[in-house]
């Protein structure tokens, strides 16, 4: 009488295993027959050969299924990796150190109404100041038209020391900008005979005001020892498109143009061309090393929030801008086919969790190898 449980377990077995068991039984029967001196019949040999062929066929079918799973797994892994390497993060933090000849800034609405080139509270001493685009000049005698020029007073005495010379310099006391309307300020390098300075162009729907102090000599009647020989005559220029060309009295000294100013847009270009001389772009999610900026590289930077001009300085006829932008959405470098500097998702993951990324990849590889080994041994 056959055991029903035995039959059930046979049905649950895989065909390959049943075949192996059948072949083993046949081989044992043949061996027993040979031991008893009975030669194997042709039918037994044919049967064993057919079983062997059938096992080979079934075994090949089983290997094909496993390979498909392996290929599928590799494809999925590959696609995920390609996706991570192609897809870019929506925004990233960027620090810029740029040497340039001109930069155009659009100021945010929330800003101070006063901009003073130079350190806070310092009055800038100028060898020369040229003003154009002024709608109103006070006193009017200084600027009959919309343009005028103020120059450092030259002392008539031969024995003028450097300190005395600076005393007679033109003072830039204040540049007041409208605090409640959009304003764009272009900062560039101004050129004059044997000197370089700063050009500031303030454009907006409301007027900006520049206040200067021009040193003037006083009349001969004031020539006595105790009398005041010089005085500072205030000059005020107001205009919607005010252009100031400022040449510092001491060209060797570094001049801080702006510090900690929030801007909504920044462009490094002059007459449609890039004004960049060099520098570095540090992309916070893209690795530690900065991306070098080459001369004439066109840099496009857009941000979802305000950017902070940490410092804009004029040093030896060259502008240097240090900018922090915490939410940059577009960062491109190049002319015709610009290079996208926004980091990929893979770079972002590698930047944020480098140890975890490498540990996960190692664990996945080890798991894959262990699974294959277990798969093969189970046969």
């Amino acid at each position, binding site marked *: 009488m056959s055991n029903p449980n035995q039959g059930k377990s046979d049905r649950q077995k895989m065909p390959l295993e049943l075949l192996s068991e059948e072949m083993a039984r046949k081989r044992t029967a043949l061996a027993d027959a040979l031991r008893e001196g009975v030669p194997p019949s042709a039918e037994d040999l044919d049967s064993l050969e057919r079983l062997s062929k059938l096992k080979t066929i079934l075994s090949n079918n089983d290997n094909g299924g496993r390979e498909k799973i392996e290929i599928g797994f590799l494809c999925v892994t590959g696609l995920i990796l390609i996706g991570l390497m192609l897809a870019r993060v929506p925004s990233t933090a960027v620090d810029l150190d740029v040497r340039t000849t001109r930069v155009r800034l659009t100021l945010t609405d929330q800003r101070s109404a006063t901009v003073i080139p130079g350190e806070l509270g310092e009055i800038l001493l100028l060898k020369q100041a040229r003003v154009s685009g002024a709608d109103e000049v006070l006193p009017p005698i200084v600027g009959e038209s919309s343009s005028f020029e103020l120059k450092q007073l030259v002392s008539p005495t031969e024995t003028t020391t450097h300190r005395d010379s600076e005393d007679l310099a033109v*003072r830039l*006391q204040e540049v007041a900008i409208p605090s409640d309307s959009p304003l764009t300020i272009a900062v560039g390098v101004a050129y004059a005979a044997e000197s370089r300075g700063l050009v500031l162009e303030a454009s907006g729907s409301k007027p900006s005001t520049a*206040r200067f102090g021009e040193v003037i000599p*006083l009349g001969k009647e004031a020539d006595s020892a105790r009398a005041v020989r010089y*005085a*500072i*005559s*205030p000059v005020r220029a107001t205009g919607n498109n005010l252009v100031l060309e400022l040449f510092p009295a001491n060209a060797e000294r570094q001049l801080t143009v702006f510090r900690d100013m929030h801007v909504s847009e920044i462009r490094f270009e002059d007459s449609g061309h890039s004004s960049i001389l060099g520098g570095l772009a540090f992309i916070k999610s893209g690795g530690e090393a900065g991306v070098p900026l080459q001369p004439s590289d066109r840099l496009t930077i857009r941000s979802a929030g305000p950017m902070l001009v940490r410092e804009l300085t004029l040093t030896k006829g060259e502008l240097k801008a240090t900018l922090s932008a915490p939410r940059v959405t577009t960062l491109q470098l190049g002319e015709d086919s610009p290079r996208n500097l926004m980091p990929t998702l893979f770079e972002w993951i590698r930047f944020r969790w480098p140890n975890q990324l490498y540990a996960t990849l190692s664990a996945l590889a080890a798991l894959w190898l262990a699974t294959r080994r277990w798969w093969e041994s189970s046969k």
Partner: protein
Amino acid sequence: MTRFATQTVIFVSICCSALGVAAQDRPAFCEPTPDALLGGLQAPYARRVAPDGNVYCEGLLRRPIALPPISVVSVKQDQAGNSLFPPDKVASLTWCDDSPEPVHVQLRSFKPPMFALDAMNRVKFDWRTDLIAKWQPDWSNIAALGIREAAIGGQTYKLVVPLRNGAGYSTSYSFVVQSKTPIHLSTALIEPLQPSTQPEAVKVTFASGPTKDTWTTTIPFARMKSGVYRVTFEEGVEQAGNTTEPIYLRHKVCGAP
């Protein structure tokens, strides 16, 4: 819910309209501070009528929050001794000017309570002292400016006419400069606009004013011809070069042409 929101919007609109009307009630030369900002003050700045029937504004304002540039905030004729406004009287502000144009009289208290007065009159301004005697009776604690517009050489200037409390006249003018930062002004540059002559620099010494951010000095103008002078207080050229915003001073010797 919708009904409540609609009623709220209507109520706010009515309130805003009422406030707007109240602010518009004041003459154009008065301070344009919205009435909503004057709530809670015991005698808020408001429209009044002077004994001569002219409308002016007087009352308490809130202290402005600002960092203004160094500027001259008060120009008065020099008066010896303390000058107080007694209660229940009619006070008089006078000035020396021959123009038919009215002068904008602007009084602002240096220290709390922030009393303010704006009027537009010719020759002099008389008003009842009920409020000023209660809130800021000391003339030395009040910044006073008399301003009128004048066209000189095709350019419109705001001329400052030195004011005086009561009758009389003095050719010494007392200036108060206000600055939030320490200043070391040592010179007054006086540039004549009318008649156009050589500029002159006068050495000045500033004393502490009524508050810690004010400084006061007096300049005698007796030897100067009647006219308009651009006056700027400044540091010497050997210093940093700070200057005040220039004022255009109308100087006239009363009784002289």
